[in-house]
Every structure is written in C-alpha cells, then in structure tokens.
C-alpha cells in the first residue's frame, strides 16, 4: 500500500546558510508539508519563501499575530516573495524558531497556490495565509532571509513531506 505521508527531503544546515531550496519536488503527491526548526544570526528577523524561483510581484499574505501582550493582523500584497514568519514578533538572534507550511493541491495546474503557515518562537505565535498567483505546479521551495544578508544558523533543520489523498 502506498504511504500516505512520506518524507521527500530533509536538510540540516552544516554551516550558516543564506537560504535553502527544495528542488525537483515531484508532482505525485496531493499536499506538501514543510517543517522547519531553525535560528537566524540576527534579531527580529523573518523567513520568506519563493516558489519555483519566481521573483515577480506575485505573492501576498495575511497574518494574525500574538506577541504575548497584544493581538494584531496585517497583510502584504504584490510582494516579490511570501512572508512566512515573524511579522509582528520580536526575538533575539539565535533564538530557536519553528514553522510549518501546508501547501494543499500544490501540483494543481488550474489554481493559484494558497498555503497556510504556523510560526512559533519565544517572541510570539503567528498564522499566515499566503498566496502565490501562479497556476504552475510547485516544483521548488526556497526558504530564505528577506534580503539574504542574514544567515540561517548551523544545525537548523528543514524537512519536506508529501501527503497522498489516495
């Protein structure tokens, strides 16, 4: 029987990295789940992602945040990458952070791609809905600091899972 939930790839940063890309993602699953357990070498920094190397203004997001004192919501549109963490939370450099991304129907070639993100750190908790305005099947996911000037620290882990509906 085919496995429902399979690891596609996993990566542990052997040294500081500016980004990591899951590439050649097979189209044979129904949904994708990406789990990251990481830290950055700067404070109050966020991770973003790009799909299929698209650097156009084709991303938007809405987020809900709680920093332990107040709740807030925000959004961005026509962005050149998708924001997935730490929009309204603050954390020191080298703070451990975790994020999970859920891409449903990622290989559907008739729909734009919506994905859900849950982010947690000692600075707060957030939920994002991101949209990539492309009907292409997702075949690569790049995780990066906003402008590449900061680093994902050694030991950070990223795992991509595929989920099959049948």
């Amino acid at each position: 029987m085919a496995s429902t939930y399979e690891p596609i790839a996993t990566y542990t940063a052997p040294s500081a990295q500016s980004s990591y890309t899951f590439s050649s993602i097979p189209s044979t699953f129904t949904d994708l789940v990406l789990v990251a357990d990481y830290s950055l070498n700067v404070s109050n920094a966020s991770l973003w992602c790009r799909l299929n190397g698209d650097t156009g203004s084709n991303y938007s997001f809405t987020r809900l945040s709680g920093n332990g004192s107040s709740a807030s919501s925000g959004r961005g549109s026509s962005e050149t990458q998708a924001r997935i963490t730490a929009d309204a939370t603050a954390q020191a450099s080298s703070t451990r952070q975790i994020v999970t991304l859920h891409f449903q129907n990622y290989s559907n070639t008739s729909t734009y791609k919506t994905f859900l993100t849950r982010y947690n750190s000692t600075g707060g908790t957030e939920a994002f809905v991101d949209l990539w305005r492309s009907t292409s099947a997702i075949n690569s996911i790049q995780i990066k600091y906003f402008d590449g000037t900061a680093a994902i620290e050694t030991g950070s882990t990223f795992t991509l899972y595929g989920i099959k509906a049948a």
Partner: protein
Amino acid sequence: MATTFTKIADVTVGSGGAASIDFTSIPSTYTDLVLKISARDNRSGSNYTDDIRMRFNGDSGSNYSNKVLYGGGGSTGSFGGSGMDLMYGGYAVGTDATASTFGNSEIYIPNYAGSAYKSASVDGVAESNSSGGVYLALEAGLWSNTAAITTIALTPVNGSTFLEYSTATLYGVNNA
C-alpha cells in the same frame, strides 16, 4: 522504507472519567511528535471551556513559557508567561457546554528527542454553541529542558476529571 506517520499510543476515556491522560515510555526513534486531543471535563459554571495542562517528563517545575494568541468570538488578545509550571495543551469544554461537544487540539513538537529546549506549536479550539467560553487559540510553547521527551501528562487546569469519550492520540513522525 520506514513509515513516516505512526501512531505511538491512544487513550479513550471510559465511563468513570480520568483524572489524567498519560503517554509514557515514548520512544526516541522518531523525529517529531504530533498529539491530537478531543476533550471534555467536569469544570462547571458559566465558563464553558477549560484549559488542558501539559507537562513533560513529570516536570512540575517552573520550566515552561509561552505566548498565546486567542479569539473568543467577540474579543481577541494575546498573553504570555514565563517560569510557569505547565504548558497549555489546548482546550476541553466543561459540563455546562452543549452536550456531546468536545474541545479539539493539535500539538506539534519538532525534534522532541534532540538536545535543545523543546518547542511546541499548539492549536486549540472550543466551540459548543454556548453564549460564552468559546475559543480559538494558537500557542507557542517552550519547555526549557534539554532532555528527550519520554512522557506527556495531560490534566484539566480547573476541572478534576476528563469525561467519557475524551480521546488523545500520540503520533511519531519520521523524516527519513
């Protein structure tokens, strides 16, 4: 290839209720843990919802911290704490909530057997068609301990007993 998502153990509360739901002897052979809870407890009164207390490895010391974002149907807010003796493990509904309703929670713990402090992502909901005490909450939890998680204990914070048909299932996730 090893199975990626495996049930480790599950608990269903019987007619006598249960003061706690416990997972023990959790093997260290997985990468992450997923805990799914459906709960109702014996908290009574106009507060239709109860919090679930979650502790790891029997640690009742002041080694937990969190940040919580919540919505209550008419209000939203965020709170946080440090030096706490528990991590919130979502919600149970109480006895005054609509019959046959249960709170639902999902908890994701990455790298639970690693040597770093343990972070948890907790999503909890309690919807019972009641006039109050309904919630949706997201929590970032931290257990400041480098030991691998080998036990998880769940207890009601305000009530004393989980009621019949409450369930909790623990899954292990392998990344290879």
